[in-house]
């Protein structure tokens, strides 16, 4: 197992290298650079030249790439072109923690709500409980954050005054954005858990378990549930990577200083170092999450073994 994990981690290196290269080339290929314009106004070539010299954008491309890689190896992601005087390390370290906190709470919330709801719905298949939870799950899945966020804000902050409208820093400010995010994923998890559990309870080994006289509780908890979690765990990987590195919409609505907006704004601003760093971090998060998922499989299903 340990050897397997080490091998997988070593494999991150070529993957991340290729992603870095592709991102680098893509960013330089799209028209428009970081310093052509200020608002509507084009800058004189002399001013652009000074800016490009300062950030070494006048070096040959291969040199820029090599310098960048050398920086990444030393964990130095370079300066931001847009936020003058701040390094990408400053920006990421400030915002990633915030995004990860929000992501962790909402993920926890979505598992806490999603799993039991899904299990209950499956066990009481075609009952009112099942219909109700499916209905809620469909609503939760279909209402996007951009509607859910303002709705929750309107009800719980403006009308009831129970929570602050937005902001970050106090635990109470986490509630509304975490629920907005969590509602979406818990609906997803609930539906998947239900479908998966329904499939598993029809398996042969469940029949065997019942045949040997185990209680229904022991059958479900001890045998069915564990295996039914495999699809759920599979989708948890990308979700985990996604919410931990920040979500643009929810962070915008609730004015949370997270990393989500940098994915979008850095591209608009052609802030190359920030684009590169956010892409790399997201790729790393996906790779790590998938590794975790694969490791979890081994615990859930005794048939899966890694050599």
């Amino acid at each position: 197992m340990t050897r397997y994990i080490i091998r997988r981690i070593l494999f991150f290196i070529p993957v991340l290298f290729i992603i870095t290269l592709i991102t680098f080339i893509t960013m330089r290929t799209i028209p428009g650079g970081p310093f052509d314009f200020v608002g509507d106004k084009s800058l004189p070539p002399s001013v652009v030249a000074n800016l490009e010299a300062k950030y070494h954008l006048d070096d040959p491309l291969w040199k820029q790439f090599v310098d960048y890689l050398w920086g990444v190896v030393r964990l130095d992601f370079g300066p931001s072109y847009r936020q003058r005087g701040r390094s990408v390390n400053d920006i990421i370290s400030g915002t990633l923690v915030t995004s990860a906190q929000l992501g962790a709470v909402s993920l926890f919330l979505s598992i806490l709500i999603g799993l039991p709801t899904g299990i209950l719905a499956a066990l009481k298949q075609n009952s009112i409980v099942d219909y109700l939870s499916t209905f809620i799950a469909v609503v939760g899945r279909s209402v996007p954050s951009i509607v859910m966020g303002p709705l929750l804000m309107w009800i719980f902050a403006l009308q009831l005054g129970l929570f602050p409208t937005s902001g970050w820093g106090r635990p109470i400010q986490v509630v509304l954005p975490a629920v907005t995010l969590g509602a979406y994923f818990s609906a997803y998890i609930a539906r998947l858990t239900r479908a998966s559990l329904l499939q598993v309870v029809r398996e042969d080994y469940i029949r065997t378990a019942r045949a040997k006289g185990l209680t229904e509780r022991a059958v479900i908890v001890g045998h069915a549930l564990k295996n039914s979690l495999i699809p759920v765990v599979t989708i948890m990987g990308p979700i985990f990577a996604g919410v931990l590195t920040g979500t643009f919409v929810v962070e915008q609505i609730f004015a949370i200083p997270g990393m989500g907006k940098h994915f979008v704004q850095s591209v608009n601003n052609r802030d190359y170092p920030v684009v590169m760093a956010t892409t790399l971090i997201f790729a790393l998060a996906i790779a790590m999450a998938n590794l975790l998922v694969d490791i979890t499989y081994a615990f859930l299903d005794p048939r899966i073994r890694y050599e």
Partner: protein
Amino acid sequence: MFRGRFARILMVAVVLLLALSVVQCGPKPKEAKPVVLNMNLGGEPPTLDPALATDTTSVFCDKQLFLGLTAFEKDTPNVIPELATEWSVSDDGLVWTFKMRDDVKWVNYNPETKEVKEVGPVTAHDVVYGVKRTIDPETASDYAYVLYIIKGAEAANTGEGSLDDVGVRAVDDYTVEFTLENPAGYFAAIAGMWVARPQPKAAIEEHGEKWTEPGNIVTNGPYMLESWEHEASMVMVKNPKYYDADNVQIDRIEMVMVQEDFTEMAMYENNELDVTGGDAGWGPPLEDMDRIKADPVLSKELKIEPRLCTYYYGFINTKPPFDNHLVRKAFSAAIDRQSLIDNVLKGEQIPAKHFACPGIFGAPPVDEVGIEYNPEQAKKWLEEAGYPNGEGFPEVTLMHNVSEAHAKIAQAITAMWKETLGVDVKIETQEWKVYLQTLKKDTPVEDVPHIFRLGWCADYPDENNWVHEVFNVNAGANRVRRGCVDPNCQEVKPSKFDEITEQAGREQDPEKRKELYREAERLLIEEETAIAPIYHYTRITMTKPWVTERYSAALGGDPIKDWRIDVEAKAAAKGE
């Protein structure tokens, strides 16, 4: 096994809760009831360094922290003294001498101890240092070009000349003298711009790029930086050593950085913000305008006032059929600007007849120069151009950058062209940076649209910044390709308009300058019709009744030192 996993989940929960509790509350003032203004900045200011600021948020912050030689009068674009007490211009208009106050101090505020340390007087040497630092190519300032009017500045900024030869010097500790390349009647406004403000040499040299962080920063304005939680919040506190501190009422400016106008509006309605719009964030969302106007309380808090910006459609003057000025005139006269404002924009914008907005020095009086909505005349012009009722008119393209607001405007205007002129105009969009690349005047003409949309906002309130810096064939970006000999604008041929805008920049007599600019606007809009001006922007703000005085600076940079708050009314409204 199950028990064990459950325990692990519990553990994760506990760790999460702990992680949350680590997130700390913002610092709370201990003093008895300071006067606090709560506002939104609209986003993270990209910099607080006056040499590097280019955007309205940074400029607003710099306005509170750093004084300029000159400033703008409350609510008007008139230049008034700030650091300077008086100034004079030599007869040839080239040498400007500013006498400065001698009672302004540099201060450093320690957010931990709340201690205000006096660092020394603000002198003419600091102005010289600031100007030269902005021009220094090492600084790589975007707005360095604004100072190119100073002798030797362009050469130094491009590395061809030395910083020692830049035309700015300290005559004595409190007198600074600028020598210009050309006479420029508008230089008093330039001298007050953030890029020309005195900068604290010692602090900059000590802390490098981090000199604008709380604790490091040394400032001289009415406020000092207490905290800057990047991308979340910023707090400024009143500077007790400010020369006019007795007349500053607001003790603390507590700013958030909310990027969503909907959220800002919710915070405002929840009394979390005292003001919105203008320099204080985004202002009410367009979707809320009807509701606000109908609401008896909110409607009183709404204020709509002119802003020094113009929205226009540019024609590519070398691309057929828009190489014919009659076609351009017809398209401009067929736009019903008032209807657009009433039905689409809803922000009481002002229909634009010419380029520069009212309030800009040299802008012609409203109604005297320009083209306005006149469907009959538009049809006649198109007929004269050889397309009666739009017959035989080729398909043409209007392009705008991706944005819901621009799309609504484009749909409305193309419908007007269809209705009045009988022509079909295709709408295309591009992402902002790609769009600006497309519009460059050397892009092959087949790749550019026939018509494009852009806006222009004043850097300083003078026509030179408008007709000359935008459309002069030599000085401006000239995206409309005026005076181009060939379609791709490899070569330009200046016309009377170009001569006039150059002459007006040099002219010393204000009345003569006004005359010249009026003629330039007439040539640009009526004769050549290089563009179709559409509307002048408005600033839409909301102000709680307890903010008893609120001023906007014409060009942004609202002076909070002049604002007033009724503390008791605010406390009562917030239930404190």
